[in-house]
């Protein structure tokens, strides 16, 4: 594995751009991390869910008496109680999806296998599960709807009578002039159906919470690994009929999130109700099979009746397609997936005429929620498939078709057909680096060598974008009445009595190293050592360091989180100088500088005031300071990215602030007799603007690559016709292990973003580049058109028959 470092932009003493060792590692390598299941409270009750064995059934009766009789069982909670104690969760969707009634436990009907029906709480984990087996639930099974393509047929089983059918949301997106484009086209390439399959990132730690209820203040303290507390609070407060301040979210170490820990609010509500009802702390740990059956599956999406207007030389004019999205049984973050893809409508290409008829339907499967690359991955897979299918139909080299149509550096910032602005980048150069890394020139020789061993070699490209920092105003395209827009993140930086610099973040890191990158920014601005900066681990909404969109999701920390840290630290810097100017007897602020852990007069360094002195004066020795000094050395800054509310009618506007780019190339060898294949070489080139900690950025690229390889080769949530999940745990849901990893060559370039305070771009999701690259490589090796994002051996064998 070789890593090509980028050309050093400027080798300064700056801490920004340095792969400093991570602060988080000390505790994590000694098993001293605190994950949710590690937290213990005296008298806590363990919660176990009774889950539906049926995909679709009426609940005719529930009897918890036998369970509650057992000594050591503290109590239970049923859907009926939840329906009386809480209101349905707020729905993002407009008509008709907006009318569905979603409670934290099933009420009257179950809609997917594994849906929680009753919660049982007992003295021990094992007893809670034993007791849950004594809960008697009577069902009246109904037909299950498993294939979204049948959801809108007249005789299809209807999940939500309130919505009057299975249609959850639909919208038409159209920009440019389709008629003109198709008139000018030399050819129209038709693609009947492409299918992006259902899977997710299965973080190694499943969901969990320890919830305490304070009888006096009516407040819940929710220790959890939810990664978007801002969103959870917005959902839980109104449902539980309480102010958001009554919901204190606390996270520390989270065992991976990848988007799959955004929508655990239903389980958290159940824990809150029980902690109040039973007057004891409630400990809920989700096991692997529970997670697979019920949590945050990725969007499964069909692209049907696609037509692409092209010139004979491979110039792409435009496309139209019908996107059908499967939301599963409930809308818990959906239908935001119905607009998020529009952040990268043209992919990396210059076509201007685009129409997408988007339809989202409900099915008797686990609810869909964000998963790494959320909704953009599906769309980018579609555009990359289109490029490779067009190249094949026109008999052109996929590399040339890409280079001909890539948005050029000189066109940047580039406004896409729907008003998104790609800030910077050099896609063609990234492709050259990637091709060079896998030895593109010697590919012919490698092909012959593979053939000599009875194998077919294939090379595939996957070029994607990580649109980072959402403008939540795009949600109004889903529902015009929504009152969300823009984005924000909060940080506080303070100087303590003994000069300790303490930082709090509003984010919920799950391995992205926020404590490290945040301290790099603080130390850079305050000109002190990294060891002087103490970033508190995780999130606590009690710190007053959180905002409506606080959390860690959608590739945005390097912009929102670090910009908030930069803002708060700069405020602190100015306050320190202001204090020093008074202490030094009226020396002007411009004459002062921060260095070596203190503040001094630039041309008279002996006049030095250490941070400890500043902290002590303000906090414990402040008599005699001027009345209007206005210095607290405790600074809170809210970073708000510069967004406008998009034009809802035209569905036009800048939906994300930054556009990091990834170009991956995969080389596969296929055994034609069995369809078995290996990835024998792999290159990944990344451009995410200014990199604060290159090693952490590269780690994200590696993680995204491994997950993409797992998804395209083995990982899938498939259901049988009765709605039973066929891959409910790691026995059948095979994630990549050590021996599955191909050789990896990484490269990087840095095109700073003109729109962000540090020139950084949000990154980390990766847009599924590995899926596109491997699909293209299989198409190259087999000579057959690949129409599915999931290609296990049996599908490759079927392709070649």
């Amino acid at each position: 594995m070789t890593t090509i470092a980028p050309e050093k932009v400027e080798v300064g003493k700056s801490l920004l751009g340095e792969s400093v060792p991570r602060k988080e590692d000390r505790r994590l390598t000694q098993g001293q991390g605190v994950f949710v299941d590690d937290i213990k409270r005296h008298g806590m009750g363990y919660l176990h869910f009774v889950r539906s064995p049926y995909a679709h059934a009426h609940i005719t009766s529930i009897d918890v008496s036998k369970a509650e009789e057992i000594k050591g069982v503290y109590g239970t909670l049923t859907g009926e109680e939840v329906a009386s104690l809480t209101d349905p969760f707020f729905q993002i969707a407009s008509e008709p999806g907006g009318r569905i009634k979603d409670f934290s436990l099933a009420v009257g009907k179950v809609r997917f296998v594994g849906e929680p029906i009753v919660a049982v709480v007992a003295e021990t984990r094992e007893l809670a599960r034993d007791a849950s087996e004594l809960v008697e639930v009577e069902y009246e099974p109904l037909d299950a709807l498993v294939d979204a393509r049948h959801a809108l047929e007249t005789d299809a089983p209807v999940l939500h009578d309130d919505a009057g059918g299975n249609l959850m949301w639909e919208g038409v997106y159209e920009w440019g002039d389709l008629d003109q484009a198709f008139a000018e086209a030399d050819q129209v390439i038709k693609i009947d159906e492409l299918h992006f399959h259902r899977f997710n990132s299965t973080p190694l730690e499943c969901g969990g919470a320890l919830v305490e209820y304070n009888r006096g203040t009516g407040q819940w303290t929710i220790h959890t690994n939810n990664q978007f507390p801002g969103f959870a609070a917005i959902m839980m407060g109104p449902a539980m009929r309480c102010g958001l301040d009554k919901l204190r979210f606390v996270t520390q170490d989270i065992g991976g999130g990848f988007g799959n820990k955004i929508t655990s609010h239903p389980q958290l509500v159940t824990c809150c109700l029980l902690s109040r009802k039973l007057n004891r702390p409630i400990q809920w740990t989700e096991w692997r099979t529970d997670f697979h059956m019920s949590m945050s599956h990725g969007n499964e999406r069909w692209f049907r009746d696609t037509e692409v207007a092209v010139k004979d030389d491979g110039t792409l004019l435009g496309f139209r397609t019908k996107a059908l999205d499967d939301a599963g049984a409930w809308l818990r973050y959906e239908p935001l997936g119905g607009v998020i893809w529009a952040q990268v409508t043209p992919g990396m290409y210059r076509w201007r005429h685009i129409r997408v008829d988007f339809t989202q339907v409900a099915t008797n499967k686990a609810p869909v929620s964000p998963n790494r690359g959320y909704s953009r991955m599906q769309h980018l897979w579609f555009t990359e498939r289109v490029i490779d299918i067009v190249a094949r139909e026109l008999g052109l080299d996929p590399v040339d078709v890409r280079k001909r149509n890539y948005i050029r550096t000189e066109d940047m910032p580039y406004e896409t057909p729907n008003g998104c602005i790609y800030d910077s980048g050099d896609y063609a150069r990234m492709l050259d680096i990637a091709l060079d890394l896998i030895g593109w020139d010697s590919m012919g020789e490698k092909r012959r060598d593979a053939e000599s061993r009875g194998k077919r070699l294939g090379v595939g490209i996957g070029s994607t974008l990580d649109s980072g920092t959402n403008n939540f105003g795009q949600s109004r395209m889903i529902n015009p009445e929504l009152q969300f827009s823009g984005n924000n993140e909060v940080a506080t930086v303070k100087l303590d009595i003994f000069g300790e610099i303490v930082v709090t973040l509003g984010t919920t890191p799950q391995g992205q190293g926020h404590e490290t990158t945040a301290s790099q920014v603080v130390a850079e601005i305050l000109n002190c050592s990294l060891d002087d900066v103490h970033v508190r681990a995780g999130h606590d909404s009690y710190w007053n360091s959180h905002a409506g969109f606080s959390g860690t999701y959608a590739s945005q920390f390097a912009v929102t989180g670090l910009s908030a840290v930069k803002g708060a630290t700069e405020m602190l810097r100015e306050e320190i100088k202001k204090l020093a100017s008074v202490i030094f007897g009226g020396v002007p602020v411009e004459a002062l500088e921060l260095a070596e852990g203190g503040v001094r007069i630039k041309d008279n360094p002996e006049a030095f005031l250490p941070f400890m002195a500043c902290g002590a004066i303000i906090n414990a020795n402040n008599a005699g300071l001027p009345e209007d000094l206005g210095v607290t050395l405790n600074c809170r800054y809210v970073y708000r990215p510069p967004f406008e509310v998009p034009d809802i009618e035209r569905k036009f506007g800048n939906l994300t602030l930054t556009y990091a780019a990834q170009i991956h190339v995969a080389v596969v060898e296929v055994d034609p007799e069995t369809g078995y294949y290996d990835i024998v070489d792999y290159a990944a080139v990344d451009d995410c603007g200014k990199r604060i900690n290159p090693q952490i950025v590269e780690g994200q690229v590696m993680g995204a690559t491994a997950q993409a390889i797992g998804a395209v080769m083995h990982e899938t949530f498939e259901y049988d016709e009765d709605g039973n999940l066929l891959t409910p745990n790691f026995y059948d849901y095979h994630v990549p292990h050590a021996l599955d990893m191909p050789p990896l060559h990484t490269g990087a370039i840095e095109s700073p973003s003109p729109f962000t305070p540090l020139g950084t771009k949000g990154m980390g999701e990766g847009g599924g580049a590995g899926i596109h690259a491997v699909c293209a490589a299989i198409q190259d090796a087999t000579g057959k058109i690949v129409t599915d994002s999931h290609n296990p051996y049996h599908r490759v064998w079927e392709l070649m028959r």
Partner: protein
Amino acid sequence: MLLREVEYVKPSSIAEALTNLAANDGARALAGGQTLINVMKARAASPDVLVDLSGLEELKGIELGSDGTLSIGPMTTYTELMDSAEARARPILGEVCSKIADVQVRNRGTIGGNLCANDPTNHLPPLMAAIGAELTITGAGGERTVPASDFFLGVYMTAVGQTELLTRITIPAGKHDGFAAVTLGVDGTCIVNAAASMNGSLRIAIGCVDAVPVLIEVESPDTVRAAVRAAALHPPDDVHASSEYRAHLAEVLAERAARQAVGE
């Protein structure tokens, strides 16, 4: 992850173990636990009593006879077999064991446990059937020896009765063996596997296509595929392979194992 109530006994002799098994029809032997404990976690099936065999030294050990036959104690772990000098007399044993799951599982999982669990995707049932192993079963009434071809009866079911124990695995001398599999990722669970052994005739056993290994005998690798088609397999279909794909893999892998056995 949360098992049902179960009793636990750890006998110090085979006789005591047999008594423990006979005392309760819900008693089951616990060898390495790499299958049984996972089935108990899923609460798909729950024994009433676990009879831990790890205290029985007589069930361990590998001996190489002067005539080249190997006698393996069922409580031998995969790792012990891979490291055993004696077992190198039949190299295929160590090679196949080294492909089972991972280090942790191989350190604790046992040869006998693998055979008695007889999960259709296990590596060893088809291997033992192909190389013609003999399995000694001890019950209250004494010992009897069963050829591998008659040992496997169904999923998680073998000739070892509920009140009996597998006490020895005897493997005839031989060197011309082969094993081929298509797995879920490298060293993953088998989608289809096939073992072959040349000992006079060419014996091939195909796994993952039925509840028990499917045995065929042919003269040479060239007739293997036809023989597999003649066996008219109708394997299970699941998310990893259709019945048709498994039947196809059975042909291809049986031939590959056979060619490896005859040294092509």
